[in-house]
C-alpha cells in the first residue's frame, strides 16, 4: 500500500476555500468501518492513520482503488454519495482521510456524527443533489487532473473548465469555518458562569 501523505499542514484558522484535485468514492452507506477498519483503532495517537484509510477496500482492489491510483495522489477533495460515514462514531475516520490529504468532502448526504467530526477538524462537508453529484463524479473520473476551487462563501465548486457547480453548506458550519471558529473548545470555555448556573439548576446534579 502506498502512502500518499499530504505535505500541506492540517486545517488551521479561517478557511475560505479548498483547492486541488478530487478523488471519487462511489456508493451509498459507506460506513466508518470501511473508511478505517477497527484494527487500526488500536493506537493512542492518530498519526499513522493516513496510510490505513480504506485499508481493506484498497487491499481488495490491489492498487486500483482511487486512493492508490497514481494520478489521484495529492488530491484534497473527496466526492461521495449518500449517507457517507455512517456507523461508528470513530473520529479516526475523518482523521485518516485528513491525514491522507482530504480537506473537503462533497456528497449527497452524510451521517451526522461523521459530519460533526469533520467540522471539528476543519473539513467542510458540502452537499449537492443526487443528479449533480453523479454528474460531477462522472466528469471527475473522466478528467481526474482537474484543479477544483471550492469556495466556502458561495458554497460552490469551480472546475478547471470554468464550470460552476452550486453546492450547499449549512449556514452554521459555513460561518464557523469561514471565521476560524470551527474548533468549539474555546467557545465552550467562554461560558463557564452560565455552565455553572445550568448545572446548579439540574436536580440530578444536586441530589434532587
Amino acid at each position, binding site marked *: 500500500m502506498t502512502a500518499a501523505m499530504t505535505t500541506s499542514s492540517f486545517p488551521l484558522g479561517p478557511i475560505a476555500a479548498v483547492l486541488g484535485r478530487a478523488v471519487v468514492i462511489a*456508493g*451509498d*452507506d459507506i*460506513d466508518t*468501518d*470501511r473508511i478505517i*477498519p*477497527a*484494527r487500526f*483503532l*488500536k*493506537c*493512542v*495517537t*492518530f498519526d499513522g492513520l493516513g496510510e490505513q484509510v480504506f485499508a*481493506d477496500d484498497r*487491499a*481488495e482492489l490491489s492498487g486500483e482503488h482511487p486512493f492508490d491510483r497514481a494520478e489521484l495522489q495529492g488530491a484534497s477533495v473527496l466526492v461521495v454519495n*449518500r*449517507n457517507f460515514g*455512517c*456507523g*461508528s*462514531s*470513530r*473520529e*479516526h475516520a*475523518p*482523521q485518516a482521510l485528513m491525514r491522507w490529504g482530504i480537506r473537503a468532502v462533497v456528497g449527497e*448526504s452524510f*451521517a*451526522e*456524527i461523521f459530519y*460533526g*467530526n469533520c467540522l*471539528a*477538524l476543519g473539513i467542510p462537508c458540502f452537499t449537492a443533489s443526487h443528479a449533480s453529484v453523479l454528474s460531477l463524479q462522472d466528469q471527475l473520473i473522466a478528467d481526474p487532473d482537474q484543479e477544483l476551487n471550492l469556495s466556502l462563501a458561495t458554497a460552490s465548486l469551480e472546475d478547471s473548465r470554468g464550470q460552476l457547480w452550486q453546492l450547499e453548506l449549512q*449556514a*452554521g*458550519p459555513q*460561518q*464557523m469555518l469561514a471565521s476560524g*471558529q470551527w*474548533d*468549539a*473548545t474555546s*467557545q*465552550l*470555555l467562554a*461560558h463557564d458562569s*452560565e*455552565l455553572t448556573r*445550568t*448545572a446548579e439548576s*439540574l*436536580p*440530578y*446534579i444536586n*441530589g*434532587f
Partner: protein
Amino acid sequence: MSAGTLYDKVWDLHRVAQLPGGSTQLFIGLHLIHEVTSPQAFAALKDLGLRVRLPERTVATVDHIVPTTSQARPFADPLAEEMLATLERNCSDYGIPLHGLGSGRQGIVHVIAPELGLTQPGMTVACGDSHTSTHGAFGAIAFGIGTSQVRDVLASQSLSMGKLKVRRIWVEGQLQPGVYAKDLVLHIIRVLGVKGGVGYAYEFAGPAIDALAMEERMTLCNMAIEGGARCGYVNPDAVTFAYLEGRPYAPKAEGWERAVAWWRGLASGADAVFDDEVRFDAAAIAPTVTWGITPGQGIGVDETVPTLEQTEPDERPLAQEAYRYMDLQPGTPIAGTRVDVCFIGSCTNGRLSDLQAAAAVAKGRHVAPGIKAFVVPGSEQVAAAAVAEGLDRVFREAGFEWREPGCSMCLAMNPDRLEGRQISASSSNRNFKGRQGSASGRTLLMSPAMVAAAAIAGKVCDVRQMINTTP
C-alpha cells in the same frame, strides 16, 4: 417543529448558551469514556493545558480491546496493553473513576452505566461511541461523539450541538413469543432505512414499547443509530423506576421520591408535537435476520433474500454489492443458510435477559458439529448473575464457550474475530463489510435466541420452532 416532547424538555434544561454559528452549548450530565476514543482527547487536553471541568461527571471503563479468554495483565497484545495503561494513567491523573478489570463492575460501557444506576431519566449522556443511544432507554438524551468532542466534554462538560427533529415511532400490539426487541428494531430499520433517521431523535412509544423490559428497551435504543438516528429514547415509566431503584448510583431515600416525581414530569405529554410519526404493528413482526451488508438489509426468517425487482431502484446497487459480498442468491430462503461462528454478546444483546433467552434455547441441546459458538457476557455483573443462575453451565454443556466480558467479536478489536470468508450468526449490531475482523468475513444479525438456534442447527432457523418443542 417538535414541542412538549421529552427531547424538547431535556434539551431546554441543559441549554447553556447560544454559540456563534447558531449551535447550542449543551450541558452534559454524564460522560462515559473508554480506552479507544479517549487517549487522543486527553493528549489534546494536556497540549492545551486544560483541566477536566467536572471529573465526577465522567466515568470510565475498558471494553473494546480486552481479550475475552485470559484477562491477565499485561495483555498478550502490546497495543491493547498500551491503550489500557494509557486510560488508567489518564483517569488517575485527572481524578476520573475507572471501573477496571476485576473490579466487579467492568464491562461494556453501555451495559455498566445502566446497571450501576449512572444512567438516569432526564440526563444528557455523551460517549465516544455511537451506541451511546442505548441510554435513551431511560428517557435520557444520549448520543455518540467523536474524539474532538470527548476533549470538549472533558474540558467544559458541554458540547456544541444542533437540535434534532423528533420522530415518534408508535408500536401497537405485542411482540409474539420468540420475537424480541432486536427483531423489532431490525424490522424498524428495514422499513425506515439506515438513513431514515438522519436529523431525527427517535421516540419509541405505544403499547408494545410500554410492555418491554428495560433491557429490551436498551436493545431497541442501542440500534437507533443503525437507522441513522443519533439518539433514540423511551419515556420513563414505572418499569424504568423499578429497574433503577436500589442501584449503586441511583438516588436514595427522600431523594428517590423527588427524583421519581421529576422523572415522571419529563415524559412527552399528551399534547406533545412531533415532527413526524410512523406506526408499526408488533404482532406482525417475525424473527428478523440480516442478509446483506447494512443493518437495513433484514428480512423475516421465513422470507427469501429480496430480488432486485423487490428492491427500491435507488437501493439496487447496494443490494447487488451485498449479493456478491455475502454470496447469497436473491430469491432463496434465508432459513437454512449455513453458518460457521455463533456470537452471543455485545452492547446490543449482552445482558442477563439476552443470555437467559439464548440459554433457554441451548438447554438440553448441543451445538452442531464444526460450529464455533461462544457467549460473552456484557459485564462482570452480568457474568456473575448468569453464573449464579447456572447459565454458564447450560451453555458449556451445550457446547458453547463461556467467555470474560468485553465487546469481543462485535467489532474485533481484540482476539475474537472471523477468519477468511467465515459467516457468523451474531447478536451484535453491525453487518458491515469486514466488521467482524476479516476483510471478507460475513455477518448475519439476529436476536440472541436466534443465534443460539443457529448454533444448534448449524444454519439459520426459526427459533419459534425450537421454543415450542422440547429437545
